[in-house]
């Protein structure tokens, strides 16, 4: 299962600003709800997080040492 950004649907108002900004086409509108399609192509560019006016999308990083 590919790790993907997180959408807080309680905050999201389906403005859809994130859809065109997503480089890998992982964000789509299904029945007026922003939906994520799991894909390894998501490069974690964080642009969906950046553009979201309601901070409904978060791209959290796990921080690890190289030898872990």
């Amino acid at each position: 299962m590919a790790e993907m950004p997180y959408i807080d649907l309680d905050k999201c108002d389906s403005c859809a600003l994130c859809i065109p900004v997503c480089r890998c086409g992982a964000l789509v509108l299904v029945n007026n709800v922003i939906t994520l399609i799991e894909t390894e192509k998501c490069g974690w560019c964080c642009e969906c997080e950046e553009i979201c006016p309601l901070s409904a999308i978060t791209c959290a990083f796990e921080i690890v040492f190289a030898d872990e």
Partner: protein
Amino acid sequence: MAVDLQILKRVAYFAGFTPDELGEAARPFFEQSFKRGEIIALEDELADNLYIVASGVVKLFKTSADGKEQIMYLAHVGESISDVPVIDGLPNPASAQAMIPVDLYGINNVDMLALLDKYPKAKQNALKILADRVRHLSALVEDLSFKHVIGRVAAILLKYAGGDGAGSKARLTQQDMAAMAGTAREVVGRSLKMLEADGAISMNRHRIVISNKKALENMIETAV
């Protein structure tokens, strides 16, 4: 659900408690769960309860008038939140929010003050907890005042790499790191790119991999 004494045993307030004392002290505690992103306590509001983190991670932060967030501390399993307003009776100095789904053990402030009165060693432990907070906040003031952003980002990466050793891994967004470093999200993004270009870290999708710990440590030392 009953309060897990193994978790309470790790709480600094109960250091030195016998099993019987711990069982007795656990009675007034209740369990409360919060969803990811849910607000647990609001800055400037009075606190009804002191909470112990039983699972998950809680973010303690202040918000400026223009909406900028400054993270004060991330509380992990066994750590307490809302100690200061419960002890001094004044409003919360910071807000608290669940970073991931969180289970807390809460105790009403009246019960907590009664517990401190009943057990002198709990009161002594409370002094140490508050002293630790002062030390942490003094270090934060130093970071915010004297270190350049890239050094602060390097310090955050080293601090949060590999979780807390108890299995809770806080995952940080660039916004979280910006709030911790007292800067804008964009500046954190730029700092991460610079650290990657320097070979100190590599960005692998949702992972920031620290490939050169020494380089990050040097960055903290020199970026002042």
